């Protein structure tokens, strides 16, 4: 779990804490089984001196088409819960990595049928090499990649040679 998230989990005031909980529970529009907090997309929630709430989110990929929708969903969720003065900011740095997906999020992905990213995405081996991806359905290690790019920028398409089912793999980044 990233440092910024830990900070946000212990905000200095109750209001920011409540705003964090609301924003954190917003589901990802592409993979609704996981929340923005599960994915590590929600970086922080702050309240400034004027009572404004600032939620900071980061895109998974530069061109992720869900980015704007996510910002809008956070905005609406907070307004629905009574926060009037709300701003959502997109932060580029530090760059999002799949290592920020929580273990709970990884488990939810697997249950949903998406193989979670192999760990330690920052190692060159994981980024370039052929790493073993376990089938989320039967657990077999005997899988093959069909396509590097799947239905969303963050996923690749795989097939299990044991149970013969195709599945999505959440790519390492």
């Amino acid at each position, binding site marked *: 779990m990233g440092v910024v998230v830990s900070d946000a989990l212990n905000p200095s005031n109750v209001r920011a804490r409540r705003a964090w909980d609301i924003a954190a529970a917003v589901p990802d529009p592409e993979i609704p089984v996981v929340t923005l907090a599960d994915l590590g997309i929600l970086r922080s929630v702050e309240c400034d001196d004027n009572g404004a709430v600032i939620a900071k989110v980061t895109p998974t*990929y530069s*061109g992720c088409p869900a980015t704007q929708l996510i910002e809008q969903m956070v905005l609406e969720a907070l307004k629905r819960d009574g926060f009037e003065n709300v701003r959502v900011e997109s932060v*580029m740095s530090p760059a999002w990595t799949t290592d920020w997906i929580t273990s709970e999020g990884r488990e939810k992905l697997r249950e949903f049928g998406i193989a979670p990213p192999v760990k330690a995405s920052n190692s060159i081996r994981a980024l370039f090499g052929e790493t073993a991806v376990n089938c989320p359905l039967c657990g077999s290690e005997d899988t093959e990649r069909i*396509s590097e790019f799947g239905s969303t920028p963050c996923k690749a*398409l795989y097939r299990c040679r044991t149970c013969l089912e195709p599945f999505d793999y959440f790519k390492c980044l």
Partner: protein
Amino acid sequence: MSDDLFRYVLRLADDHLILGQRLGEWCGKAPSLEEDLALANIGLDCLGQARALFTYAGKVEGKGRDEDDLAFLRPEREYCNALLVEQPNRDFAWAIARQFYFSAFMLPFWRAMGKSTDDDLRAIAAKAEKEVAYHLRHSAEWVIRLGDGTEESRRRMIAALEELFIYTGELFEMDDVALAMVSEGVAVDASELRDEWRRTVDGVLSEAHLTAPEAAYDQTGGREGRHTEHLGHLLSELQYMQRAYPGLEW
């Protein structure tokens, strides 16, 4: 300083906008469904990088132009992308060769840019580097598959690699704008990336049992707005909605 920085960022933004548009032309027409998704996804990455770069360029320029103004409302001569990225999709091998040459350059470029003194460019680079690693791997796999494939695929791969080669030299070009940015610690000296690029290209081509082309000359001019005849046609499609319906929003 800020004028050079604006031009430098704008060049990068234009490279990615134009390449993203070219990749988007494959949507619904790629050789297979998986490849349709792949090219559209790579195009999206390019477009995402372009948006971040245009937004930053607009901020640096300080004249109130936003990403849309810069992307849609300039005449052809003001686009300063490299000539390589505007080259048309003659066939699938052309799209792959163009992507391969470009990604083999952008990977070490963004990596080096990770040490830029410019905060915005450093943040964009950190994200883009990881995305480009996938683009390079994907296009390199196709170069090998087509180059070492059937007689027909090999013939087309060789033709694309050879015809596009004259546009690769421009990627390493250093002019006054780029040199000024290097001296500020903002930019990368692209000419220093040439050896690594050549090693990547030679390595993949030898796996494909192909010989790397040699350029008889380098075709350049894109950075000053002197383009091949293909850019104007691309722009007429890219700009159509904003020109026909100014201020249109989806």
